[in-house]
C-alpha cells in the first residue's frame, strides 16, 4: 500500500517533487434501491509530478469509480482527495468544472470527439470554457495538434480520420489547457495492436516532457508501457509496483512488422 510515509517509490530523484494526486482513505458508496454498493473501500495513494501510472483491475474492481473521482467527475463518500494540493472533496460543482478544465485532460476509450466538428475545433473546445481569447485558444489548439503529429489535419472531421488519428486529436484536446494531469480511460480499447502502441508512444513522449499520466487499462501488455502499475480488486489496492522491464513504444513499433492488407 502506498502512502505518503513511503517516499521514493517512483523514480529516484523525484522525492522532492510535490504530489499531483494524494488520496487518503477514500470510500465510495452507491445506493442502489435498498442495497448499498461499496465501490471503494479505503484507497490511499500518492502520485507525483512526472509519474506514468497504469491502473489495472477487472470490471467491478472499483478502478472506474476511482478514475471518476480522480477526474473530479465524482466526489468521494468519505476520505480526502488532494489534486495539486487542493482538497477537491470539498468543492462545489462549478469549482469542480473549473478544476476539470484547468488541471485535468481526459482521454476516453471511444475518443468522444464532437462529430461534424473539425479537429481544430474539437481541440479548441476546452479553451472556450477557460478565460482566454479565441485567438489564444486557436493558437494553443494548433500547437497541441502539432505535438501529437496532426498539424496537417486541423480541418479534417473525425469521420475523415482513422481511429488512431481520432485518439490523437482527443489527446491534443486533453493537452490544450496545459493540465497537471492526463487521465486516459482505456485509450487503446478501440484500437488495433499497432495503433495502440502508437498511442502509447505518444503518451510516453508526453511523459518524458514531464506530463503526469494516469492510464486505466485492463490489458497487461499496455500497462507495461507505464512506469508504475496499481492493481485494484474489490475496491482496494492489491498491488502497487514499479514496472521492471519497461518497453519503449517507439522501439516496439520499429520491430513490428507492418501489416499489409
Amino acid at each position: 500500500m502506498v502512502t505518503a510515509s513511503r517516499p521514493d517509490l517512483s523514480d529516484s530523484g523525484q522525492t522532492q517533487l510535490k504530489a499531483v494526486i494524494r488520496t487518503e482513505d477514500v470510500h465510495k458508496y452507491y445506493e442502489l434501491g435498498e442495497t448499498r454498493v461499496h465501490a471503494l473501500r479505503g484507497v490511499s495513494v500518492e502520485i507525483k509530478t512526472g509519474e506514468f501510472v497504469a491502473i489495472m483491475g477487472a470490471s467491478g474492481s472499483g478502478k472506474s469509480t476511482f478514475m471518476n473521482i480522480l477526474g473530479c467527475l465524482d466526489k468521494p463518500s468519505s476520505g480526502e482527495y488532494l489534486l495539486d494540493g487542493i482538497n477537491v472533496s470539498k468543492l462545489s460543482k462549478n469549482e469542480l468544472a473549473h478544476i476539470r478544465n484547468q488541471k485535468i485532460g481526459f482521454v476516453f476509450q471511444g475518443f468522444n470527439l464532437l462529430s461534424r466538428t473539425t479537429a481544430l475545433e474539437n481541440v479548441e473546445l476546452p479553451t472556450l470554457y477557460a478565460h482566454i481569447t479565441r485567438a489564444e485558444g486557436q493558437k494553443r489548439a494548433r500547437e497541441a495538434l502539432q505535438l501529437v503529429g496532426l498539424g496537417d489535419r486541423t480541418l479534417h472531421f473525425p469521420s475523415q480520420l482513422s481511429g488512431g488519428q481520432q485518439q490523437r486529436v482527443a489527446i491534443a484536446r486533453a493537452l490544450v489547457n496545459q493540465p497537471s494531469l492526463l487521465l486516459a480511460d482505456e485509450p487503446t480499447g478501440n484500437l488495433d495492436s499497432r495503433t495502440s502502441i502508437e498511442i502509447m508512444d505518444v503518451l510516453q513522449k508526453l511523459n518524458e516532457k514531464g506530463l503526469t499520466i494516469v492510464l486505466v487499462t485492463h490489458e497487461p501488455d499496455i500497462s507495461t508501457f507505464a512506469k508504475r502499475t496499481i492493481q485494484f480488486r474489490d475496491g482496494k489496492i492489491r498491488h502497487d509496483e514499479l514496472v521492471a522491464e519497461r518497453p519503449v513504444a517507439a522501439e516496439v513499433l520499429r520491430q513490428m512488422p507492418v501489416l499489409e492488407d
Partner: protein
Amino acid sequence: MNLAAILRIAMRALARNKLRSALTMLGIIIGVGAVIAMVSVGQGAQQQAQDQIAAMGSNILFVGSGTVTRGGMRMGWGATKTLVYDDMSAILRESPAVKAAAPGSQSSAQVVFGNDNWATQINGTEPQYFEIRNWPFQEGGPFSQNDVEMAANVAVIGETVRKNLFGATDPIGETIRINNLPFKVVGVLASKGTSAAMGQDQDDVIVVPLTTLQKKITGQDWLRWIMVSAVSRDASYAAQQQITGLLRDRHRIRAGQDDDFMVRNLADMAELADQQARLFTILLASIASISLLVGGIGIMNIMLVSVTERTREIGIRMAIGATEADVQQQFLIESIVLSLIGGVIGIIVGLGSSYMITHTLGWPVLVSTTAIFTAALFSAAVGIFFGFYPARKAARLDPIEALRYE
C-alpha cells in the same frame, strides 16, 4: 464562455440539422406572421372607423324616435310617432348649444330608371342636412328650401344608386320613378363608402325633400330622426342634455318614465366603434397568438429531442470543464436563436401578407411598429420560456452517466 462563442456554437448546432431547424422555425414564422397580419387588419379597421366618424363630424347628434310598450309588447326604435317637426323647431329655438338641425323621415322603395331598377332607402329631409353631415356633391347640388315647401319631385342620389341605375349615363336632369312617381335627379352625392360604425353602405340612398316623402310616399307626418349639429365638439354633450330635457318636457314624460326618443352623440358612437374595432383586434391577435404558442411547444419538443440526442456531447463538454450554467446557456441560446430567426422571418411574412390583404381583398390594413416589436419580443420570450426546461434538463445531467450514454 463569451456570448460570441455561445452564438457560434448555437448556429453550428442548428446548421447541423437544417431541415429540422427550418421546420421548427416554421411554427414561429407562422405564429409571428399571423399575429402581425391579424393585428394589422384589426388596426386598419379601427383606423377606418375613426376616420369615417371624424369625416362625419364629431359635433353631430342624432335624435331618433324611440321605443314604446304597447300591451306589454316593446316595439323597436322608430316605433313612436311622437317626434314631430315642431320638436325640431323647439330644439333650434331653445337649445343654445345647437347650431343647426335637419328633420328626417325614411322609407324604402323600388327605384326605376329605363330598364334598370334598384331597391334602396329613401330619406326625406331639408337642404341643411347635407351641410350638417358635411356631405359634398360629385355632381349637381342639393334641392332647395323652395322644393321642400312645394313638395317638389326632386331627388339627390348616392353613388351606389347612380352606379346601379345609370352606369355611364349622366344622371343630372334625368327622371327616375320612385313608387311610380317621377323624380328629377338634381345631384349626385360624393361616395362615403361603407360605414365602419354602422356596417352599412352609406352611398346606397336617395334623398328627397321631407314634405315630398311624407305627403307622396309614406303618408306619415311624424319624423324618424332629427340630425343636429352642436356649436362645437365640446358643446355636443351640453346639446345632448338640453335636447333630452326639452323633448321630455314637450312629450310630457314624467320623472322615472323612459324616454320615447333617443339622443345619440356621434362622439359616443365613435368611441363605441373604436371599442368594437379594438375588441376585434384583440380577438384576432389572440387567435394568432395560439399559433405562436403551438410554435413554442414545437421548439420545446425539438429541444428535448436535441438534448437527448446530444447527451454524450453534453457529457464531453462537462468533462472538459463546462459548468451547469455553460450547458444551460448553450441550449437556451439555441432555442432563442431558433425563435428569434423565426420571429424575424415571421415579421417579413406578416408584412408581406398584410400587403397582400390590402391589394387582393382591398381591406384597410395598418401595420404598426408596436405590433412588430411586440411580436419580436414575444418570439424571444417563447424561445426563453420553452427553451428553459430542456436547457435545465441538459444542465442537470450527470457527466458520468452522460459520457456512458449510447
